[in-house]
């Protein structure tokens, strides 16, 4: 149980999730119909599944289709004519290659901060970001090219720590998987990922002065009422609350 205390509050945040979201669902306007196609970053899987369920309960005439993938892939798909109404990305940088003529509206809807994930037994006894420099601690990070990798670089620079990296994974999920499987002693990932992984990993918080955050934009691509309602719902308190229950902070 060594070094487990800092993660206590973050896991606690995931606690009372479901109840609040259904309460706000009733406030939506009735009589909407249609299909909303949502392309969302893989890290939003659980939270958007919950939002989809709530929104559909509130608007029985609307079907929400979700497709999860890496942000870069999603942008490429939209550029090539994917039938998408809404695009929710991890990091605004991912939206850069997007064909701007397709964009009707862009808003930030969530923010994620970095956290150290360690196996539940925390074999290397990682207690702070400084421990990641020890040669006995196997650290995995995201690759420098992906948002979480860039963010981790920035954090280490700020903390003046040179971590003992064994692998730079292509995405945050692969990074976390290494800790999950016990192959790595620590990984720097998003707080929401630690929350989503439940008891499979433990989080070790990174102090605020070093930490870097990532802003999630939601991009509206079609101009129909159901889509506007969906985006509005994500941005509403109910939506915020659901997102918060999965470890996302407000933008």
């Amino acid at each position, binding site marked *: 149980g060594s070094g487990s205390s800092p993660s206590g509050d973050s896991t606690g945040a995931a606690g009372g999730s479901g109840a609040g979201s259904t309460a706000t669902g009733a406030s939506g306007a009735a009589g909407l119909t249609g299909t909303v*196609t949502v*392309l969302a970053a*893989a*890290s939003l*899987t*659980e939270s958007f*599944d919950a939002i989809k369920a709530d929104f559909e309960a509130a608007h029985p005439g609307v079907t929400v*289709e*979700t*497709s*999860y*993938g890496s942000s870069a*892939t999603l942008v*490429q*798909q939209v*550029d*090539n*004519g*994917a*039938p998408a109404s809404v695009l929710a990305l991890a990091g605004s940088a991912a939206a850069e290659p997007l064909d701007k003529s397709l964009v009707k509206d862009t808003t930030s809807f969530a923010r994620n901060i970095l956290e150290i994930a360690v196996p539940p037994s925390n074999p290397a006894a990682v207690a702070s970001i400084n421990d990641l420099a020890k040669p006995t601690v196997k650290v995995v990070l995201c690759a420098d090219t992906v948002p979480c990798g860039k963010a981790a670089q920035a954090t280490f620079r700020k903390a003046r720590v040179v971590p003992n990296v064994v692998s730079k994974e292509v995405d945050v*999920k692969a990074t976390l*998987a290494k800790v*999950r499987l016990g192959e790595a002693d620590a990984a720097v990932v998003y707080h929401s990922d630690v929350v*989503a992984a439940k008891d*499979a990993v433990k989080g070790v918080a990174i102090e605020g002065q070093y930490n870097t955050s990532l802003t999630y934009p939601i991009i509206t691509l079609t101009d129909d009422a159901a889509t506007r309602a969906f985006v509005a719902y994500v941005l509403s308190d109910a939506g915020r609350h659901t997102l918060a229950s999965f470890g996302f902070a407000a933008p």
Partner: protein
Amino acid sequence: MVGGGTGRRVGGRLVLGVPALLAVLLLVLPLLALLLRTDWSRLLADLATPTVWTALRLSLTTTSCTAALCLLLGTPLAWLLARSDHPGTRWLRALLTVPLVLPPVVGGVALLLTWGRNGILGGALSAFGIQIPFTTVAVVLAETFVSLPFYVLAVEGAMRGLDPRLEAVARTLGASELRYLRTVGLPLVLPGIASGLALAWARALGEFGATITFAGNFPGRTQTLPLLVYVELERDPQVATSISILLLAISVVVLGALRGRWLR
């Protein structure tokens, strides 16, 4: 002398048996590890969900279409490649192998560049209101793109083994090239076709990268089992393992039955 012979025989068995055993271990141990780490009590509950069923149905439908496309398009191609001795053929053949080495995601991008809204064919198609990406058709196209090369290579290899004099005899008996192919050539390479089909089908069943890029990940439309595994890996790795075991079981049963039926 008999003793020496037996010794030599055992020696031969060892020289072959040890590497073969290593090969089997290399392939089978990871599967075993997967099975050992599975929570069997949860397996059925994990699998008996509508999402899994939908994905399963989609996977079986699209891989069957892919297998059919391989058979229909790949067989004639294999045949023409097998009998051509034009020097260009060998480069064509190498070119056809490229989808194997292309990282699947790049394959998906290439497919988008071809069939997408701004693609070299997709532009013309969308003028007719036909949209291919992000549909079930796109899943089949992606699966075909990655598995057709396997099929063509395996079948072409088998076809090269045919005694050309059999064709000569069939032709003198009045058979056209097509009739020879249908009545003699294909039946004789049936083992090759079956093994090519097995390879292609299996590759299609496991296909992920090109599919998610080109067809997206829409439940019921383009979310096949491997894509579901990807999504579940994010949400609940145990479910992902359960689905993998489903994939594994399907392939063992289908390939075991197929090979038992068609390969001797």
